């Protein structure tokens, strides 16, 4: 971390320490500790008991109990993940689907953010509000709304049939195309907001200077606007890509039986097969895949917030 940007060290009182302790302990208990437990259970074996895995660590048995439970750890679940095609195919297809959707979101989101940044100053708060509003409405509802549109006898097919553009209804629901539409639609605000923020900050005089010097508008766009909006593009893409990889609701409701996504696999492993150790192992690997983009995203966020401050 850059030393200059850390706030000066204030004199810390007992109250100051307490202030730090409250959120810190909360997050340690409810965010970090659960991951350690997931990791531990991913090394356990499935058992017909409550909870459905073994070995369980019993505090009453003290040191011996700890030794016993560690010696009972196995990597069987991870080996299982490599043996069954389903898992690595799910990981791969989740990453591919998330990457394609992120790209589509960027292609659709960039003109929107650009149009907002170029709109009259007085109009911008309203436009901003219009982008934020769907973000506040339930994710589930927004995904559900698409089912009625994309169904075989849905509104889109009715429209296309009545216009005579198609003679037979298109099958869109329960395909990967519906999943792409769902992800782009649900995550669009996450990309537009940071992108708009960085586009709006661009100094208009730079573009004017380029124009005065005879640079055609499209070239000025490529040479000035695009590079300067890059922080927003990167932040927005991370905000779409990372959660999309682990998405469950969209592939489950809009995708078909051949839409493989790891969030769905984890869900059915847990709720249908009741195999807690394997679903924990699935989660650990998913986390390992996402750790790199998450750390990159955090570094970028830190840099951006320090620049603001």
């Amino acid at each position, binding site marked *: 971390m850059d030393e200059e940007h850390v706030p000066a060290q204030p004199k810390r009182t007992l109250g100051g320490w307490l202030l730090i302790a409250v959120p810190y302990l909360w997050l340690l208990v409810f965010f970090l500790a659960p991951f350690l437990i997931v990791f531990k259970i991913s090394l356990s074996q499935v058992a017909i008991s409550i909870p459905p895995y073994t070995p369980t660590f019993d505090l009453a048995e003290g040191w011996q109990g700890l030794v016993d439970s560690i010696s009972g750890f196995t990597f069987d679940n991870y080996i299982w993940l490599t043996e069954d095609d389903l898992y690595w195919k799910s990981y791969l297809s989740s990453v591919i689907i998330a990457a394609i959707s992120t790209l589509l979101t960027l292609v659709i989101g960039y003109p929107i953010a650009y*149009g907002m940044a*170029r709109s009259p100053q007085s109009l911008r708060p309203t436009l901003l*509000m219009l982008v934020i509003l769907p973000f506040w*409405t339930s994710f589930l509802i*927004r995904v559900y709304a698409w089912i009625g549109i994309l169904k075989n006898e849905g509104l889109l097919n009715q429209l296309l049939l009545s216009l005579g553009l198609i003679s037979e209804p298109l099958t869109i629901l329960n395909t990967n195309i519906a999943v792409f539409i769902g992800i782009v639609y649900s995550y669009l605000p996450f990309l537009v907001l940071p992108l708009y923020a960085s586009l709006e900050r661009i100094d208009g005089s730079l573009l004017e200077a380029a124009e005065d010097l005879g640079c055609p508008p499209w070239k000025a766009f490529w040479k000035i606007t695009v590079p300067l909006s890059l922080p927003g593009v990167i932040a927005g893409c991370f905000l779409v890509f990372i959660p999309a990889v682990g998405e469950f609701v969209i592939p489950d409701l809009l995708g078909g039986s051949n839409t493989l996504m790891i969030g769905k696999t984890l869900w059915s492993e847990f709720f249908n097969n009741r195999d807690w150790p394997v679903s924990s192992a699935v989660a650990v690997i998913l986390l390992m895949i996402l750790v790199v983009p998450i750390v990159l995203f955090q570094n970028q966020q830190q840099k951006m917030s320090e620049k603001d401050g």
Partner: protein
Amino acid sequence: MTRGPTWFNITSLVAGFSFLYLPIVLLVIYSFNESRLVTVWGGFSTKWYASLLHNDQLLDAAWVTLRVAFVSACLATVIGTIAALVLVRSGRFVGRSLFSGMIFAPLVMPEVILGLSLLLLFVAMDTSRGFWTVMLAHTTFAACYVAVVVQSRLVGFDKSIEEAAEDLGCPPVKTFFLITLPIILPGVIAGWMLAFTLSLDDLVIASFTTGPGATTLPMKIYSQVRLGVTPEINAVCTILVGLVTIGVIAASLVTKRQQVQKERDERAAFGAEG
């Protein structure tokens, strides 16, 4: 970046916002459909709203959801605001990077991982699952959103007012309530609302961490959606969308008025000086 809007910009805005709003508008329209077939228009009717009132399961789920959302939003606002203060004001301390990491990670972490890990925590703690476990789970991830919202408000804040109060002998707690809190209040309120709606919306984390007797509204909607689209669900969704829309617009109007008032006060103050 201010330049006149071009046709390209106007078209992309119109197309973009139609894409964002059309599905929701259609959903609302078809909640007033007489026909049970959701995609065939059979005339205007409010009968699906009336039938909601007799759907006890749905009403129960709504009540559970509202309670969870209210309690977790309040708790998350307290924890998140403190976390934001720590991030912006506490300088260096052991594990600062870990702390800020734990604040930002839940924002992008897939919900299936958060839900599974919290469930396994509750199982390890041997707590019975239900209202309280869902509430704690929602508090945890919502607190991170609150922290980010409040933090952005704290960053653009003139620290000299706080320092002046402390130089004049005002104890830190009093300074916080008299000076810091009123200034960051819009951020805190926005944070509370965000926490409330996040909890209201959440399906995945609630499904993992809930127990018997605590079915939330999204879980109920989800199990019905799997069976097919019905006008009743459209009606429930319309009510939820309506409430959230009113809430967000009201909140933005209030903050806007406050800002206008503040600017007027400042202008008056400077006018008096000169």
